[in-house]
């Protein structure tokens, strides 16, 4: 009899299924009552929301933009913004390049041979420079490009399709700013020229490439809906600014300066062009040689040389979506940047969540809890659900208010909001709340494993917040920071990335710019894995240990 009695206290063997057999529902209710009856925890959660909102709105409200336009009176805020072109897809774009063009009505084909792509950029090893003062050195920016283009009009942001050679990314076919298809790799030179061809048939434009002018390979086909019957067609050259990223502990420095690219074309032929048309040089969006050209927004003429069927054209600018970074043409924000306060809220939530379990050990309440509900897994689950739900609601409210109040303030102060589709905005907001919820579950599990609040909080804060901090503050070099944001629970912050990464634009991966090394859902999944692992370990420990 006694041996039977001794074997009973193991919780799994116990006959009870929670209080009065009420099951998981009453367990949830019990945990919820525990949570809301501790004033400090409720205050902690409120504090998490308030801190998140305060920091987001504070960071938004203090942007301070002043300018003199053409030596005029001092202006501030929105009055300082230049004309901002938008692409056919609605995204904000850069559309500045040197264009040697003529009109093409109806179907037609342009073919050229590119024999050289050279350029020069600011000499970054000798301090700050301005274009045109002789301190440019030969060299190309990563995405310097020259090639042929068919464009709806000379307006910035109008639809286009282009075939081009680049410095280090081979031949590319690009269209409407976001589309990018790779062709043959390798750099262009007189010994290894590249033949490029664009053929229009109705709304469809097909790009071809060739190494010798006889064997042609199709690179891609794009459909530009609503293309007018007359389009502008010709050669172009342009180069985004030159940037050097220097990585070291204690500082990742991005330095940048102007750059320009020069393309040399021959064997130019245009089938279907109006007879008697001549080539006109146009600087789209002031995209002439760096340091020259007309003011921003308008288009002026650009010089090009023509010598026995050989054309040489120099340009500066880019034909690509605008992304945040050192080279961005105007101050810009993403909706994710209004959520900068979320990590401060995260600290508060992690503290409350870790205590939600570990305090039971300090006060001995855990023995009462387990006596009432002997199924330890269910207790852990109930705590995780309750704290997760509370953190989710807190985060949702904080994120909605931060963005709802912060974003209009940012726009009023003269910053340009890089808009995201509605679904992306929803993902950022709900994702932030979900990230806080899963981080809270992670902290609860740590509290159960370690049974001591101080240790649980330190580990949770170091694991979740510290990697973000070290990366955002450039305390560690970018390469190390990338891995920290891939492997640690902080990877989940990627859920706040609202702007896509474009392969055809050089961007630095930096949380401050709103870029994370992992895709949003992959980053979130990393945190989920950490939480699941911590829960599993907590379950094993809870079952094995006496309370």
């Amino acid at each position: 009899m006694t041996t039977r009695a001794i074997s009973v206290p193991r919780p799994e063997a116990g006959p009870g299924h929670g209080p009065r057999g009420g099951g998981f529902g009453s367990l949830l209710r019990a945990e919820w009552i525990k949570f809301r009856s501790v004033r400090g925890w409720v205050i902690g959660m409120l504090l998490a929301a308030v801190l998140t909102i305060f920091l987001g709105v504070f960071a938004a409200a203090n942007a301070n933009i002043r300018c003199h336009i053409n030596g005029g009176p001092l202006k501030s805020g929105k009055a300082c913004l230049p004309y901002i072109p938008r692409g056919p897809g609605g995204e904000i774009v850069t559309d500045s390049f040197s264009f040697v063009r003529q009109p093409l009505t109806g179907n037609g084909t342009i073919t050229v041979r590119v024999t050289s792509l050279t350029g020069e950029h600011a000499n970054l090893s000798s301090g700050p420079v301005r274009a045109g003062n002789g301190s440019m050195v030969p060299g190309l920016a990563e995405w310097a490009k020259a090639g042929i283009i068919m464009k709806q009009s000379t307006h910035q942001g109008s639809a286009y399709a282009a075939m081009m050679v680049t410095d280090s990314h081979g031949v590319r076919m690009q269209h409407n700013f976001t589309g990018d298809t790779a062709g043959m790799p390798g750099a262009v030179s007189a010994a290894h020229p590249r033949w490029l061809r664009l053929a229009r048939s109705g709304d469809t434009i097909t790009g071809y490439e060739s190494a010798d002018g006889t064997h042609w390979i199709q690179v891609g086909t794009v459909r530009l809906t609503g293309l007018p019957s007359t389009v502008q067609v010709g050669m172009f050259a342009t180069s985004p600014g030159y940037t050097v990223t220097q990585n070291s502990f204690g500082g990742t420095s991005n330095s940048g300066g102007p750059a320009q690219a020069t393309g040399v074309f021959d064997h130019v032929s245009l089938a279907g062009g109006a007879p008697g048309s001549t080539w006109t040089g146009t600087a789209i969006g002031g995209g002439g040689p760096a340091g020259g050209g007309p003011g921003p927004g308008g288009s002026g003429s650009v010089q090009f040389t023509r010598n026995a069927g050989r054309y040489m054209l120099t340009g500066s600018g880019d034909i690509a979506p605008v992304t945040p970074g050192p080279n961005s043409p105007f101050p810009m924000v993403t909706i994710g940047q209004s959520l900068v306060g979320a990590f401060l809220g995260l600290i508060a939530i992690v503290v409350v969540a870790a205590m939600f379990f570990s305090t039971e050990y300090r006060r001995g309440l855990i023995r009462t809890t387990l006596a009432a509900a002997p199924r330890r897994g269910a207790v852990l689950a109930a705590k995780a659900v309750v704290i997760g739900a509370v953190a989710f609601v807190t985060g949702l409210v904080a994120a909605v208010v931060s963005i709802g109040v912060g974003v209009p303030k940012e726009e009023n102060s003269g910053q340009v909001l890089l808009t995201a589709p509605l679904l992306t905005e929803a993902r950022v907001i709900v994702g932030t709340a979900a990230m806080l919820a899963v981080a809270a579950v992670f902290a609860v599990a740590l509290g159960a494993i370690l049974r001591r609040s101080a240790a649980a909080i330190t580990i949770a804060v170091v694991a979740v917040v510290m990697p973000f901090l070290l990366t955002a503050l450039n305390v560690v070099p970018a390469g190390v920071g990338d891995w920290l944001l891939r492997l640690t629970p902080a990877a989940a912050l990627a859920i706040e990335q609202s702007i896509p990464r474009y392969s055809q634009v050089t961007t630095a991966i930096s949380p401050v710019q709103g870029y994370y090394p992992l895709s949003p859902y992959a980053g979130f999944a990393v945190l989920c894995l950490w939480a699941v692992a911590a829960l599993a370990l907590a379950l094993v420990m809870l079952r094995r240990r006496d309370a």
Partner: protein
Amino acid sequence: MSTAVQAQPASAMATATARGASLRPALHAEWTKLRTVSGPAWLLLGLAALTIAVSTAAVGATHCPRNLTCPVDTTKLSLTGIQLGQAVVAILAAATVSNEYSSGMMRVTLAAMPRRQAVLAAKAILLAALVLVAGAVAVSGSVLAGHLILPGHGFTAARGFHPVWLSYGPTLRAASGSVLYLALIALLSLGVAVIVRDSAVSIGVVLALLYVFPIVLSFIGNEHWQRRLERWTPTVAGLTVQDTTGLRSLAITPWAGLGVLAIWAAAAMLAGGLVFRYRDA
């Protein structure tokens, strides 16, 4: 009879003797408490080891390529580890107070030594002294790492970089300032811990205080607010004591920056002292 009176514990004599005399038994008691648990020793060891490790990794990963100018403050780079070491100091300081509260030891302490200011002063003195010693070890190791490694990575005297060594005035100021910085962080978190009492909450508050302002700073575009934050926040202003280059562009001079942190620490200790004096344990 007279011998019996003299045999009484010194704390009972405190009221009769001079004020300074009551500090010695309090120091002795606090030293015994710290010495006889393993936690503080490990944390102090961790402070030195972690700081030196991070500093060494930082200088080891930094190179100055031949064709580029490197805007690197070699002294500040060599002291990178302080960024993480300060977290260990915060944990140590919080633990010395909150562990007494969570275990109920505080009631015994105050029963034995009813003069609460003396208890808090003893804790502060002992903690600051221990952190100064461990911090000196940590900073010396970090400076040594910078001194040995950096010249081999392109940061030579020929290219205008001062050797990271204590004979160079600014480096000496940065090194000694960093040790003081750690001690002031210890006092700041001790004050917070006395107010908050709970170890978890006080560690959360101090870690937020240490790391939030630098992050906020990197997201703020407004120059006025940037200047203000650089001048008045504990970590950003305090760590200017490590700067040896570009002093003109700093928002606050190095020693004044450390002074700002000292104001924060003094305010935290003062508030902690008042709360400690008038609140039931």
